[in-house]
């Protein structure tokens, strides 16, 4: 076992050998032994199996106060230390401490999680409720408030090591809840405006590069378009085949335009007329709702 552990430690040194040799003397090539050695180390690592999960806070070099301080500074926010600490303490941690027989005066972040969740949905509704119709706004908000998304953001804020919980490794739901609690803590430390700015800067930017139709797509675009037209009092549309190319071949392509009262609503193409019609309906919906092609 000792030999094995030693060899793992060496593996980082092998990498160090490759990359940092620049510092000492010029290196012409990566030596022939490096690759086989790494291969052997990888084989041994696979044989042993995955490493046991560990808490970073169990290390000797760990100062919770300093970490809390750095957390706020890193994000450019002034947190109230006590509120931030409470936001990071989960119920499971307190229960665990009590079971171990320790008396703690810690408070759990249950109420902060609920408050933060409300702030997030309020902020997102403000952001998207006005510019998009309800269906689209709802699906964008749903996408942004999934456990995966919130935990991803929380992880990249550096919350994984700071959370006080009994789980090891920290679960996604816990991370997502911590993110909500941190937002509530920010609101209590500063004000609501600041908390909303935080949500914009860290959560909403995750939509970068995505289109509306990545997050929302009506199941029956043609029926959906018909409903919109009825509501707006516009005449029913008429689908026309604008172009066709290479029909009866594997590369067949049709272009369909939807017209209402001789005005073009939307145009789309596909490998058969039905698909082309659906694409055209989506295009018409995009034009009617004035959806941006890219969300940010």
């Amino acid at each position, binding site marked *: 076992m000792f030999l094995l552990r030693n060899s793992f430690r060496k593996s*980082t*040194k092998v*990498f*160090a050998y*490759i*990359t*940092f040799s620049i*510092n000492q003397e010029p290196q012409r090539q*990566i030596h022939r032994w*490096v*690759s086989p050695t*790494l*291969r052997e180390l*990888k084989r041994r690592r696979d044989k042993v199996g995955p490493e046991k999960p560990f808490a*970073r806070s169990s290390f*000797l*070099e*760990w*100062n919770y106060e*300093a*970490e809390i*301080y*750095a957390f706020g*500074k*890193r*994000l*450019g926010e002034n947190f109230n230390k006590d509120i931030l600490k409470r936001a990071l303490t989960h119920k499971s941690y307190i229960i665990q401490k009590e079971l171990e027989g320790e008396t703690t005066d810690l408070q759990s972040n249950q109420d902060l999680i609920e408050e933060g969740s409300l702030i997030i949905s309020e902020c997102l509704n403000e952001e998207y409720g006005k510019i998009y119709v309800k269906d689209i706004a709802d699906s964008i908000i749903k996408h942004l408030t999934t456990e995966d998304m919130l935990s*991803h*953001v929380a*992880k*990249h*804020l*550096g919350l*994984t*090591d700071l959370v006080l919980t009994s789980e090891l490794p920290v679960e996604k739901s816990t991370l997502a809840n911590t993110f909500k609690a941190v937002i509530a803590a920010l609101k209590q430390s500063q004000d609501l405006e600041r908390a909303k700015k935080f949500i*914009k*800067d*860290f959560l*909403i*930017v*995750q939509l*970068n*590069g995505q289109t509306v139709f990545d997050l929302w797509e009506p199941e029956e675009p043609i029926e959906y378009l018909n409903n919109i037209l009825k509501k707006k009092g516009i005449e029913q549309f008429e689908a026309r085949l*604008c*172009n066709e*190319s*290479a029909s009866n071949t594997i590369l067949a*392509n049709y*272009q369909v335009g939807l017209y209402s009262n001789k005005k073009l609503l939307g145009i789309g*193409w596909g490998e058969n007329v039905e698909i082309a019609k659906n694409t055209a309906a989506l295009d018409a919906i995009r034009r009617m709702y004035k959806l941006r*092609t*890219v969300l*940010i």
Partner: protein
Amino acid sequence: MSNTSLVFTPSFIKNPSQNGLGRYVCQLQRVVLKFCKNNGSSRGMREFIEEELVDYARSNPGVVVYLKPRRHRGPVISAEYLNGDKQWINCRNFTKVEIFKWLNLLKTQQGDTTGLRFRKLWHTEMPSIQGPWTPYTFRPSSLNLISFPNEDLSKAPEEESATDKLIELYKKQRISES
């Protein structure tokens, strides 16, 4: 060297969690400086700690700096990033300046890039904002009103035939002879 080598991992330029789009967050979250108090190989590290460390920590309040003295072991920088990466640098016989430079590098990168080989020096998630090409893109609008099959368009292009070229040559020859 082959692309499937174990030594270098192929990768693209990355930006973790859309960093910098809203506000910029330094991705280095903590750094541990390990050194020996009396071994010569840690000399530069000790000088750095005595003279520059306080300034470094003050100018980077978002990075937690730990010092870990260990007897008779080489100096090491161990850095941890927000994306979970951990980077280990052997600083044997490094000078104060070198350590400062390495720490500066750690501060400015997004994760552990040791043993990475960039497949390209640029990357985009959206290769085309224009959309895919179809046979109707950039088609001349004069074709809109034509019904196919069309006689004019089906005609062979009028080019000078080989016979015509020969006759032309023959005529030129006669002019030059006369």
